[in-house]
């Protein structure tokens, strides 16, 4: 087994990996960039190493040099950054450092997304209609032709890693040019690559991923499927397991197809086989992510198997400890992403210092986060602040448990998307389990409760008290901020 492991990542996933390493007795080395210094991953690691800049998390040379300097025998890449960088994996191999993940060739095959789709289709697996190749920045005309051939609406996708960045639905040819430009800016920023390809859009759709665990001896099992159809800015903000959009028979077909794909592509360690499912329940292979995913906590809370521990064990050459029939799946799990985004300002990111962080507790509620009271949400990174995952015996109980967990969660200092999450958890379509990827655009109007009148009245009283106390405590030298009658439109508050 490994003795010293470097975590080439930040945020909640770095904390999550450190926790398992500590449970396994593996010494951890964390890396951090100056603005990230207050992150919990720096505090909890055995050793911590400062990086030169915000980009360094994705610099293979920088990370490898630190790994060698500190004498680690393994690197866990987390998700994003170097998780699917075949060159980095080869460099680790050459340096004699274990990379926790699949071999470079598997990653390469899977990152060629069009090639992977064609290989799957050749094996008789249904896939989404897509352009036969990807297009560089100066090939807009060819891209437009491909889109016309596929037929609108289409989806633009990056040739590089997942997480939805750069993905854009285009309703018609008129909006294509602007969408392509924006997608390229985003994929350049996130992946350093502007290559795009085109897929036929399936609308409304459901996004389903199957968790695969595979050892080097050729054994593989699945830990069930999760659905991530509550999507905002292409990010799945709420996911659940099992998927709601599948009949029992379709579920068996989809799981079997995922296993076939995993074998076809010779996946190793952890992978997620992703599908789009249309409203009729037909599923189409979309891609395979050959790394741990943000939503892996769903499989963990349902199966009670620690996937990071499995990753490390498998990379150390140990065989799978479970056969498919050993995996117990019961109950229902939901995961929410709490993000530093302003719900009243187009969900723009809101980096800043958190004053109070109060995590929910109690039965079957799990929180993964890198923050605590007084910690910073740095400006350069993903706005994901915390993941809340709950389990219950059935879906209705899981929904009410998640609702109370979100209501328990206290975050002050910078706005978050908590109000949006709470609203989804109260939305009748979500509660009934009847929704697809367009849920957020169809959220029902405010839910009216029996106590509505009393709550409004009390909140008016509370706001009046807060406002008056605040006005009195402010520096009287700047009376213009607080003394103007129409507070909200006051110039000084921008």
């Amino acid at each position, binding site marked *: 087994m490994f003795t010293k492991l470097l975590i080439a990542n930040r945020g909640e996933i770095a904390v999550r990996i450190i926790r398992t390493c500590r449970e396994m007795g593996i010494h951890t080395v964390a890396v951090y960039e100056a603005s990230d210094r207050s992150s919990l991953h720096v505090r909890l690691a055995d050793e911590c190493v400062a990086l030169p800049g915000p980009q360094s998390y994705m610099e293979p040379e920088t990370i490898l040099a630190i790994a060698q300097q500190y004498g680690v025998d393994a690197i866990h890449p987390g998700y994003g950054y170097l998780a699917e960088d075949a060159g980095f994996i080869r460099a680790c191999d050459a340096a004699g450092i274990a990379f926790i993940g699949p071999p470079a060739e598997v990653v390469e095959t899977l990152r060629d997304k069009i090639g992977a789709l064609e290989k799957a289709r050749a094996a008789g697996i249904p896939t989404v209609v897509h352009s036969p190749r990807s297009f560089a920045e100066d090939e807009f005309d060819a891209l437009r032709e491909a889109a016309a051939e596929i037929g609108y609406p289409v989806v633009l996708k990056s040739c590089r890693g997942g997480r939805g960045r750069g993905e854009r639905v285009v309703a018609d040819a008129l909006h294509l040019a602007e969408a392509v430009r*924006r997608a390229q*800016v*985003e994929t350049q*920023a*996130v992946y350093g690559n502007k290559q795009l390809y085109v897929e036929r859009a399936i609308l409304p759709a459901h996004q389903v991923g199957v968790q695969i665990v595979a050892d080097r001896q050729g054994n593989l099992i699945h830990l069930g499927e999760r659905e991530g159809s509550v999507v905002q800015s292409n990010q799945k903000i709420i996911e659940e397991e099992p998927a709601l959009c599948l009949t029992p028979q379709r579920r068996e077909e989809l799981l079997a197809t995922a296993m076939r794909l995993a074998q076809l592509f010779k996946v190793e360690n952890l992978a997620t086989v992703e599908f789009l499912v249309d409203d009729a329940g037909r599923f189409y292979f979309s891609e395979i992510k050959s790394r741990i995913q943000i939503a892996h906590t769903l499989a963990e809370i349902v199966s009670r198997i620690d996937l990071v521990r499995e990753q490390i064990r498998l990379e150390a050459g140990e065989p799978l400890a479970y056969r498919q029939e050993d995996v117990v799946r019961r109950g229902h799990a939901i995961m929410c992403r709490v993000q530093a985004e*302003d*719900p*009243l*300002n187009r969900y*723009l*990111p809101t*980096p800043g210092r958190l*004053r*109070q962080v109060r995590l929910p507790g109690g039965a079957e509620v799990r929180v993964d986060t890198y923050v605590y009271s007084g910690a910073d949400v740095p*400006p*350069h*990174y*993903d*706005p994901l602040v915390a993941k809340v995952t709950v389990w219950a015996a059935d879906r209705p109980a899981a929904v009410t448990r998640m609702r109370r967990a979100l*209501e328990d969660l*206290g*975050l*002050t200092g910078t*706005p978050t998307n*908590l*109000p949006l999450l*709470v609203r989804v958890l*109260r939305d009748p379509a979500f509660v009934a389990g009847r929704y697809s990827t367009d849920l957020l655009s169809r959220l029902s109007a*405010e*839910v009216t*409760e029996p106590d509505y009148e*009393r*709550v*409004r*009245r*009390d*909140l*008016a*009283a*509370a*706001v*009046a*008290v*807060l*406002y*008056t*106390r*605040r006005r*009195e*405590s402010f520096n009287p030298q700047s009376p213009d901020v607080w*003394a*103007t*009658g*129409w*507070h*909200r*439109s*006051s*110039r000084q508050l*921008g």
Partner: protein
Amino acid sequence: MTRLLVTLDGLAYEVELGAVGGDTCQVTVNGEALTVTVPHPEATVIDMEWLIVNGWPYEIGFDAGLQWLKAYDGLHTVEIQDLNQRVARPRSGDGRVKAPIPGLISRVLVAPGESVTAGQPLIILEAMKMENEIRAPFDGVVQAIGVTVGQTVLRNTVLAEVN
């Protein structure tokens, strides 16, 4: 006695209240008397986040500008008018365009003297790997551009002025 008109999600409440320094205060909302307890009166105001109104506890989050309020049931929009002050509403025509978040200026799309229409993108501000368009608040002429490409700006930095 302070008299406020509090508009919550578009519904107006007339609120009267006396001293608010201690841990309990008497408040009248639309003529109904309520007791509001502030459990941590010694906390700085910005940290205050829960109150008990007539025995009902509320945990409240609000933004620095008191424009919205987060209660257990989600977000509420807020407007507060001080009925004692009767200050006229300031003109809405402030043309100073400020950074809504900290970030990096990645592009400047207009130049001083240029005519712009409401909603037209003026500047691209990059933050957390997202490209954010900063748009013109109304039709007018760009008076000034206060930043350059590559510059890092704080929240509320004036980026441009339009009139």
